[in-house]
Every structure is written in C-alpha cells, then in structure tokens.
C-alpha cells in the first residue's frame, strides 16, 4: 500500500463516500420529486469519486464496508445527519465550496489524485451551483425558510474549521483555502439575506478529529446501516 495515497486518497475518498451515503438517505424523502432526483444524482457523483479514490488505496468494497468507525478519515461535517432540507443544503454549501476549491488546486498539481480532481471538479461545480441556488431561495424566501436556512448554517458552522486542517502528503496548503472559501460562502449567505454564523468554527472536542478517526455520535449508526448487508453476507454479489 502506497503510504502517500493512504494519507491523501483515503481521507478525500471517505469524505465523498460518507456524504454520498448521507445524501442517498434523501431518496424517497425529499420535499419534491426533482430534489429527490437531484440529491441522488449528487450522491452518485460523490460515490463515483469515492470509488476511484478508495481504489487507489486498496479494495474499494473492503475499505467501504469492512472498516470500523475509527478507521474512517472523513471530516465530521459530511457525517452530520441530514436534518431538515435547509440543514442539508447548508452542509452542501459548506462542503461543495470546499471541494471545488480543493479539487481545482489538486487538478493543477501532478499527484496521482490530479486526473480524478480534474474530472470531478466539473461535476462539483454543479453541486455548488445547486447548493447556492437553494440557499438563495430558502434564505430569501419565507420567514420560515429563512429561519431554517439560518439555523442550518449556524448549527454546522463549528464543523467547518476542520476542512482546513492539513492533510499529510497532499502537497496543498489547505489553510490557504480558508480565505477564498469564506469569501465565496459569505457572498452567497449575504445575497440570501442571511447572516454569517459567529463563534468558533471548531469545538474543543471536534477540532480536526475526523481526519484522525474521531467521529461524532451519529456516524456509527450511519455506518451500521451502510455496512450491515456486506457484513451479514460477505462477498455476496448480484
């Protein structure tokens, strides 16, 4: 196993895999049919990224379905439960803005992640556009949608600091992405007549911890659902 890919492709692959699983939970539950389809399509894009990234590290199925919670390296933001639709959109806005910046950087480099990043960044641009349009619509919508959108942004704010923690071997200064990320997110938030959250963007117990394998309470339950079929029937195919 290539140690550089373990330290780089694994965390990014886990980000994509875990968020794909969370978004997939919306299938059949989204507020309108079009969103059911949209969120499932975004999940599918992310799952495609995850498959390529995890395959760089080892067997994709073993990695996705055979690892314990502490072996996952995704940021805590992506494992947060869906909440209401606005909460999911807030998570999408924070993460897709980050992923677009990160993949743009990686696509310009010459690492083994560059071809995937160059391909995926074009897809992520649509994810970001989707999140932006919904943030505007909900924020600048009714009093109820405005309040819920603000609540989603506020609730997830403390998980955003971790996005910019260094990932060893990546060759990209993630800390330097924080400024452009803040600029882009706050431009959307302001246009949506919302307020940028205040307060720390990390909590004392969660700072940078997802990348070290420390996850929040709901992650274990998500993994149980994601992995139970494979664990109950190892090697089964259809």
């Amino acid at each position, binding site marked *: 196993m290539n140690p550089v890919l373990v330290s780089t492709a694994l965390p990014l692959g886990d980000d994509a895999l875990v968020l794909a699983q969370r978004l997939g939970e919306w299938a059949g539950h989204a507020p309108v049919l*079009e*969103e059911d*389809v*949209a969120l499932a*399509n*975004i999940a*599918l*894009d*992310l*799952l*495609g*990224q995850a*498959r*390529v990234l995890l*395959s*760089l590290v080892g067997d*994709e199925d073993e990695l996705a379905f055979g690892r314990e919670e502490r072996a996952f390296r995704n940021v805590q933001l992506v494992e947060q439960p869906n909440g209401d639709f606005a909460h999911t959109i807030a998570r999408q806005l924070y993460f897709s803005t980050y992923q677009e910046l990160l993949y743009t950087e990686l696509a310009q480099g010459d690492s*083994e992640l*560059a*071809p*995937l990043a*160059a*391909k*995926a960044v*074009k*897809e992520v*641009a*649509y994810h970001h*556009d*989707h999140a932006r*349009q919904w943030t505007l619509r909900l924020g600048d919508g009714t009093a109820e949608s405005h309040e819920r959108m603000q609540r989603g942004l506020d609730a997830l704010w403390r998980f955003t600091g971790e996005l910019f923690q260094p990932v060893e071997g990546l060759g990209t200064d993630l800390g330097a992405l924080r400024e452009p990320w803040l600029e882009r997110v706050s431009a959307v938030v302001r246009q949506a007549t919302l307020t940028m959250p205040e307060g720390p963007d990390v909590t004392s117990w969660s700072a940078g911890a997802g990348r070290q394998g420390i996850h929040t309470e709901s992650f274990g339950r998500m993994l149980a659902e994601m992995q139970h079929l494979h664990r109950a029937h190892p090697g089964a195919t259809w």
Partner: protein
Amino acid sequence: MVTGGGTVTDGAPGGAPADEIAAGTPDGVLEAELLRLAGSVPDPELPVLSLAELGVLRGLQLVGPGRVEVQLTPTYTGCPAIDTMVTDITQVLREHGMAEVSVRTVLSPAWSTDAISAEGRRKLAEHGIAPPRPVGSGGPVPLELSVRCPHCGSVDTTVLSRFSSTACKSLRRCESCREPFDHFKEL
C-alpha cells in the same frame, strides 16, 4: 472494479488514439474495423447515440492474436452506465473473433460534452434532448444562457431542476410550447 483491467488514472499507454489508427497495415485495418464495431455500440442510457458519437472511446489496440485492449472514459465519475458499456463492447468484439477483450477506464484527460460529435448533437435534439452548448476551456457555461427547446426551437426556456433522469442532464421547460425536456448539461 468493473473492468477487465481496472481503472487507471493516467492516459492510455502507447497505442493508437481513437482518431489516428493507421489503416495501412493488416493490423491497422483490423484495429480500425474493431474500433468501428466498438464505436457502434449504443450508449445504454441514451441508445440514440453510439459510443463513438458520445466520444467516450479513447483508443483500441491489438495486443496479440485475438487479444485486444480498449480504453473507455466515463462521462461522469459515477456514471453507472459504464459497466454496461464494458459488457457490450466486450460482447461485440468477442463476436468478431477476439478471444480476450480488456476494457480499461481512463480518467485523463477528463471527458467533456465537447467530445460529443456533431452527428451526436443532431441525434440528441431529434430525440427531444437539448444538446450541450460548447464549453471551450473555461469550465461549465453559466446556466443563465438560454437553451433551445428541442420541440419548437424557442429559446424561451427555464430550468425546472438542475439534475434530471441522469446526472448528465437537467430538466427544463419551454415557455413557448410548455413542453418539458431534458438538456444535456455542459461538462
């Protein structure tokens, strides 16, 4: 992984690119014929288009007697149709006497809707799917630009949803004839 040879993330090693196969040698003639056959396989999700028209075939090489290697690129990273494409290509080439067919997925350079041929675009429109606009080098075209209704030709169309029946399409409605239609998104 889905393919015979697994996914590689760099370009095809050696061999002839899809559009430059030399037809002068016997092997070249056979390669060109095999490429034509592989290219004639219909896209599983848009059967109106062939894989050649979709621009996803990256190359094909004879690597020995009855042994052929094909490079295929996905439209979207998570495109579920790629498994079916691999199966269909393998079947077509086996029927043409190739005992061993290996289809590899290549990511770089990334596929773009600019790779869809003019004939492919015409077929899409004829099939009721608004073809993608040219992308050039500047990334996705801003969605605000108008898309022409494939039914009545009006440019007065609006987005209903950014993601439609597949990730590669958005759902739009024509404000002139009121028909909904799919639009192949620029990538």
